């Protein structure tokens, strides 16, 4: 077992701008690290540098206590699961899993024992003789997992392994992967752009944007204390509402209670998550106002009721920006009505207008 330590890692593809810039973090032994970010932010590039499939332009990658910058992929003691699985189409499921072991001159008896074990864990026993194209997408995915686990590597690398599956199967496999990784205790680095996957799988979440790390931390810490506007809006769905507050220009109409906030002279962004905007429904659920709360007068434009919760989209002060709110249960407000939505002081996020960084308040 081993940790993965990145020090000032950077990547410049021949003749283009840097894809990854100066990234440092350590995934502890047995930890589950998820790299998340929008398309093109360099997640795959970073993962492939750890795997040894891309050269490392700058910095240092360590696996355990070994610097692996110039070590061949096969000698890094890693296993990788690809988005398209990359199973060998002409080999049976058994041979797909056994191939890497055979190349390492593992005795045949040991190979069949390990493949049998992996097949048992992944419920692939009935399919060992089949070719990959005779399997369903989910089964192929499990073969790819099997190929990774039979090797007993020090690190698992996953590049969007679930993105070719339908939503239901993806949910199930997500749980499987987490269980398997816990059970085997192998360090994992997992790339995804699905924030639900990121939040549920990670012990350690790395949010990337345009080749740099925006924030690293436990998923709920990132949700509760996003350090930048980017992280605030990337994590959580629907994304956090951002209201620009520039004292010199005057505050937006319909916004009340921001006077006590420590606004810098240059201005700030006020972030409020949709789920933190509460509304009073005709005396049903009374919200008593406390000092420091912020109140928003929203004119309802659209209401989406999905059963357990309701999404309300309304304009701030009647004709201002669109704000989303998320309420428990059924909250059926007719379009055109204006209501007051309340956000507690502890749920307010404040970011510097120019730098996008969090301001303590």
């Amino acid at each position, binding site marked *: 077992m081993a940790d993965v330590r990145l020090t000032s890692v950077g990547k410049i593809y021949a003749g283009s701008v840097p894809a990854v810039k100066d990234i440092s973090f350590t995934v502890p032994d047995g930890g589950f690290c998820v790299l998340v970010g929008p398309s093109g932010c360099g997640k795959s590039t970073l993962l492939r540098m750890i*795997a*040894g*499939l891309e050269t490392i332009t700058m910095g240092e990658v360590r696996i355990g206590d070994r610097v692996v910058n110039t070590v*061949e*992929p*096969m000698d890094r003691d*890693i*296993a*990788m699961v*690809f*988005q*398209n699985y*990359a*199973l*060998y*189409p*002409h080999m049976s499921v058994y041979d797909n899993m056994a*191939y*890497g072991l055979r*190349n*390492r001159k593992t005795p045949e008896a040991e190979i069949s024992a390990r493949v049998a074990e992996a097949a048992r864990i992944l419920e692939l026993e009935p399919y060992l003789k089949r070719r990959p*194209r005779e399997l369903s997408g989910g089964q192929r995915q499990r073969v790819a997992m099997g*190929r990774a686990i039979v090797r007993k590597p020090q690190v698992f690398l996953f590049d969007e392994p679930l993105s070719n599956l339908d939503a239901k199967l993806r949910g199930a496999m997500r749980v499987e992967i987490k269980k398997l990784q816990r059970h085997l205790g192998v360090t994992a680095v997992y790339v995804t752009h699905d924030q639900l996957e990121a939040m549920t799988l990670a012990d350690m979440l790395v949010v990337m944007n345009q080749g740099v790390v925006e924030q690293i931390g436990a998923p709920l810490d990132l949700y509760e204390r996003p350090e930048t506007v980017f992280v605030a809006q990337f994590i959580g769905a629907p994304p956090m509402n951002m209201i620009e507050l520039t004292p010199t220009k005057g505050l937006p109409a319909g916004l009340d209670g921001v006077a006590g906030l420590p606004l810098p002279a240059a201005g700030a962004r006020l972030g409020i998550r949709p789920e933190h905007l509460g509304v009073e429904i005709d005396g049903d659920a009374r919200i008593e106002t406390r000092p420091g709360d912020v109140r928003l007068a929203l004119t309802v434009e659209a209401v989406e009721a999905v059963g357990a919760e309701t999404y309300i989209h309304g304009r701030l002060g009647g004709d201002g920006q669109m704000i989303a709110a998320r309420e428990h249960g059924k909250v059926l407000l007719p379009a055109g009505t204006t209501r007051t939505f309340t956000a507690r002081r502890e749920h307010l996020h404040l970011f510097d207008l120019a730098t996008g960084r969090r301001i303590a308040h």
Partner: protein
Amino acid sequence: MVENRPLANLVSHLILITGVAIVAFPVYLALVASSSDPTTIANGQLGLIPEGHLFENYWKVLFQGTERSTKQPMIVPLFNSLVMALIISIGKIAISLISAFAIIYFRFPFRHTAFWVIFLTLMLPVEVRIYPTYKIVADLGMLDTYAGLTIPLIASATATLLFRQFFMTVPDELLEASKIDGAGPWMFFKDTLLPLSMTSIAAMFVIQFIYGWNQYLWPLLITTRDDMQTIVIGIQKMLYVTDALTEWQLAMATTILAMLPPVVVVVAMQKLFVRGLTETEK
């Protein structure tokens, strides 16, 4: 299109049958002629019903040869053609696979130059560079040898291009998975690329076997000894007789014999060959 209309069926069958008949009739006629008595064709009496001299004619042409022209048993040129076609097709496939592999999977200086030079040779078939090629083969003392017959024909841009095209469609992740699984370049070639290319190889084999089998100009130049002749030249020579009648029944028997190996190759490879053209296993 899945339709089931009797009239459309009938019409399409008629068209197909006509097509088959146009192609097959001359072959049938050759078969009939190869079973005839020496005098039938000379007298212009060849009918559509086979006569009884089939085995006699084939035996004679294979092991004794004609009486009036070459007088050589045709088993020898048949064997030469087979060797030539096999060396050419296997040689072409082997070299093309390796060069396509180098071009796609290795980064070396002048990689693109190498590719374009190979590509350029498409414009220089043997017929165009026949004199210099003959000179080289002659200077190397390879006249009247299998090496002289085959080596100049082995270099092939077509097969290299085909395999290059195919390799480019193989997902990069397969190479990467192999790397992680501890396979070096040759193991990747042997364990993954070759099995995946099997259908393309079969298609190439069929095409190149027929190409090699049908060679005429090159063997004509490079062979002088009777025992190095190929079957196409053998047939041609059989037809030249002075002051006597051509033994058409024997020439036709040879023609039929000369058609058989390509047919066998096509039939044997058909399943793979058709898959190679239609289905990809990725």
